[in-house]
């Protein structure tokens, strides 16, 4: 078994994901794959890539489902990667010490030199966020792009996770969720950001912003339910009688 940091990390780096604007385009999914297959967890292997049953290790996936019936329901696109929990069960279950949570920023990582690919962490993770790299025989997971966010070889504005930088719907935000002054904390407060399955007590760092209320009924935009006819007095096109100048 592996220990979590003795004290909660001072910084809690994580993602805030906006379910109101995520269109399920998979940009974050593929850009994550692209960065990371050549980055810290390289490679993210693929099996059968051109044949009958292609599969591979992806550190971020988008699930699409529908909630509610008929036209009243919603189609929800739900991106999911490691949530970097404060009580990371994947760490405490690890028999070798390969899985660990960094004391300085809360990022949960796998040290592959110590990973024996037993898969216990994947079993322990309540969110299904771990990915076995079958070819490598080791577990892989979201690193919050640890080789980008501190990388002095990148321009400062690019030091953010690949999924955040690439998101065309600007639905992904990165920051320190322990810092009350950070943009992500403000965003969570403003939009009612939520934990996934808080009742389970894993205290995930990542937050989800719920869809904004839909304005699809009378009274939600300031407009009346229907327009009044304008021609009552002036007859056909009576409203057209004012002088116009080109």
């Amino acid at each position, binding site marked *: 078994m592996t220990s979590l940091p003795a004290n909660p990390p001072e910084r809690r780096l994580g993602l805030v994901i906006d379910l109101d604007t995520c269109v399920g385009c998979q940009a974050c999914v593929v850009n994550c794959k692209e960065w990371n297959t050549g*980055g810290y967890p390289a490679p993210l292997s693929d099996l059968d*890539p051109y044949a009958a049953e292609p599969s*591979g290790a992806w550190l971020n996936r988008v699930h699409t489902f*529908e909630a509610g019936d008929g036209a009243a329901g919603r189609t929800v696109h739900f991106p999911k990667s490691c949530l970097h929990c404060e009580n990371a069960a994947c760490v405490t279950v690890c028999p070798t010490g390969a899985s660990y949570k960094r004391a300085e920023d809360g990022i949960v990582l796998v040290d592959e030199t110590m990973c024996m690919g037993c898969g216990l962490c994947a079993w322990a993770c309540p969110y299904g966020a771990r990915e076995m790299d079958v*070819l490598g*025989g080791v577990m892989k997971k979201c690193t919050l792009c640890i080789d980008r966010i501190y990388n002095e070889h990148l321009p400062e504005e690019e030091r953010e996770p690949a999924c955040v930088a690439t998101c065309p719907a600007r639905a992904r935000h990165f920051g320190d969720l322990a810092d009350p002054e950070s943009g992500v904390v403000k965003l969570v407060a403003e939009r009612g950001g939520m934990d996934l399955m808080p009742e389970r007590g894993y205290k995930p760092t990542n937050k989800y912003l719920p869809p904004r209320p839909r304005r699809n009924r009378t009274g939600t935009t300031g407009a009346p339910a229907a327009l009044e006819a304008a021609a009552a007095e002036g007859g056909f096109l009576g409203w057209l009688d004012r002088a*116009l100048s*080109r």
Partner: protein
Amino acid sequence: MERADRPQGTWEDMTGTGEKGATAGSGARVDTSPVVSDEVKYSTCYMCACRCGIKVHLKDGAIRYIQGNRNHPVNKGVLCAKGSAGIMQHYSPARLTKPLKRVGERGAAEFQEIEWDEALDIAADWLGAIRESDPRKLAFFTGRDQSQALTGWWASQFGTPNYAAHGGFCSVNMAAGGLYTIGGSFWEFGEPDWELSRYFLMFGMAEDHDSNPIKLGLARLKERGAKFVSVNPVRTGYSAIADEWIGITPGTDGLFVLALVHELLRAGKVDLDYLVRTTNASWLVIENPDGADDGLFARDDHGDPLCWDAEAEAPANALAAGVTPALKGRVTLPDGRSAVPSFQLLAERYLDPRYAPETVAEETGVSADTIKRIAAELAHAAFEQEVVLQRPWTDWAGRRHETMVGRPVAMHAMRGISAHSNGFHTCRALHVLQVLLGSIDTPGGYRYKPPFPKPVPPTNRPAGHAQDVEAGQPLPGPPLGFPLAPEDLLVEADGTPRRIDKAFSWEAPLAAHGMMHMVITNAWKGDPYPIDTLFLYMANMAWNSAMNTADTMSMLSDKDPDTGEYRIPRIIYSDAYFSETVAYADLVLPDTTYLERWDCISLLDRPISEAHGPADAIRQPVVQPDRDVRPFQDVLIALGARLGLPGLTNGDGGPKYPGGYPDYLVNHERLPGIGPLAGWRGTEGEHEGRGAPNPNQLNKYIENQCFWQHELEPEQRYYKHVNQAYLDFAVEMGFISTRAPITLQLYSEVLQKFRLAARGHGAARPPERDRKRVETYFDPLPIWYRPFEDEVNDEAEYPLHAVTQRPMAMYHSWGSQNAWLRQIHGFNKLFVSSALAEEQGLENDDWVWITSRHNRVKAQIRRMEGVNSRTVWTWNAIGKRAGAWNLAADAPEATKGFLLNHLIDELLPARDGGYRYACSDPVTGQAAWYDLRVRIEKAAETEAGETEPRFPAVVPPPGLAAPPKTLRYGAGFRKRTGDGR
């Protein structure tokens, strides 16, 4: 579990103390600051048609990472799934490797590798003989070609009118509907004012056009609290995040829009000042039933349109500043003719109860209350939330205005409404709605992207009349254009089409993008005449780009039993990949990937501008090809020189552009001073738009991250069609030829001229067969009619509509060879509403037969809530022919993936007289993919398991290695990081 062998040296190196690791604290375990790349090169993406700026990282000569360019006008740093998978596209095992000559039968994909010299000799031999006899016997059609400014010009230099790209089966209705109404349209022509719009209405499937800018825009709208309404039979993608999803019945968008117009007119909620100043609402239309001038505008001696000046109570020049035009009232002109302002005709038509919400509710599947509410919301946004910018500007007449007033309602539409046989009028209806609200190019509305607006319609006419085509000679103009009158059609004296695809004939008069979907059928039939060589580029016509795919494949390989010769004698094909169409080529010219070549995203072609300024871009070779392939544009230029085409040779007969495409990009001038690229012209790069060729131009682009953009002055950014400062700029840049204001055409006199011809007026008249059709569909005001397949099918027999949606992670057929993207969309299912599934007793994954009047396809279903209950749908272009794209023959794309294309007949059933019209819009010839009607039935248990129809697997040609069984892309980069320590 059994542990796989670890690859050599991929992580042991990572265990040391990273020297940069100190930043993160526990650097003992992680190198947080590895060197990312050896080199960064900028270029332009080609994973779809969006053309985003990319920043490509190279390491050890291989591609490490592709990201969006933050400074680029299109994508502002973001990059979609397709663009992010560029590495796998570039290294695809389906890449062709060498020129190929067919040695087996067509379709068998039996080829012999040949050298480029031989390939070019063969092509020059075939094409040279055609050019010296009848240039029309070359049919040159390109697909998702981003170099149409070159390919179209090449065709005219060759002398054949038989040229088009894929616009005719993509979105010509959208383009033509807009260009004939407002001188612009959506996507490349204009965009919503994302920063100021309060209300955004999107119609139909638009996920691919465009891709990243719309996503960026939707996020911005939502952040600002604007309302987003999506009108689409299917609730996926963009529709999923709309405030309101309207699951309309396919093909009825036009009726819905005209019902909104009805409501706005009924309430007087239209912008009268805008109409009077920028549209032809006041222009007088002659009412002279049976006369040759009926429905035309009354004009003065100079040909200028007349209005009725309400103050002077006399006719006046409608273009003059300061007149006080009437928008209603029938008048008698001094010459005794009766006339009425076009606006009155418009109002009379749409105020009719047949456009009332209650009347259209059933047909559209949208409740009357919803239609009324949406109309009220549009009016509320436009008139109660008007945007006023304190920004002085000067109009075309020199009058200064202190503010810019905007109607913050914006709209967008693409293929969803375009790909119906009523799409042209629907697109026009949409623009009419925007115009009535006064939102075109006003703050918060729809905004033109320069070089648009253009005159309505643009001024180029198609070449290809009898006198235009001569052996050994170029055409006098471009093969595509915008007819203004029946005289502009490309027909013989008896009305027979002159083009092989029948574009610009009475069957499809305004076919501004050609009719690529008809080329193979017509060439096979020899209707209107046989051709010699079909030359295709990047057009997968033997699969997902054809209607009636199975028969199309047969036509490509069909022989005349009398002669034993192929009915389409020769086929040349250029593609970078082993697509389904390769198997049908006699000669294959292998293209490079998008990261291996020069390219140009030109203002002469399909621009990438933004509303606040024109832009263009280049691609530069980021890596060198490792195969014996050549960029198609280089090949075309070389071939043109061999053929002695005038624009491609010097006086001495030598090649004019010996340096190939980059040489052409810099030195070609379409008009003096105007070339493919607008940036850094002039010998020192001192000019924009117009200027002498600059030998250093490409370097200037590279220094500027491969794009050029000009920012308009604030006063030029709105009302561009009537804005003096903008119009002056546009003339200087060569976008338009005169400073005259551009008047929006609510009422289309161009359409009326065709209708008059159908009524027997004028010299150019349709043959009897086409008269009724032209008269009906060339209505000068937008009409709505049921899609043709609705008319020809028995509703009871084929009760369902069937459409496709474009997955945001795939572009046409290209994505399936991509090891990453195919893990996201490896095969498709037929999505069926839960209500319909209940009705038919269908569960998820059941196999069903989808049957149209033409064919049937077997597929698995998936139940869904967010879909119009009389509509079934699937993802576009996921199904593949077994073996194509170098995928295993049992890949799910081939065993389970399917195309709806098999169900679509490219011809409508025979009408009186036996003639079969194309399954197309009668105005533009746009392929009506989305008209499809089907029924579904559960397949027998014994039939479950595989899709049908299936075709024999093709075997990849020589040079394509068997694809790898596993991929560990990037392992090497990690190793090298370690080596450095």
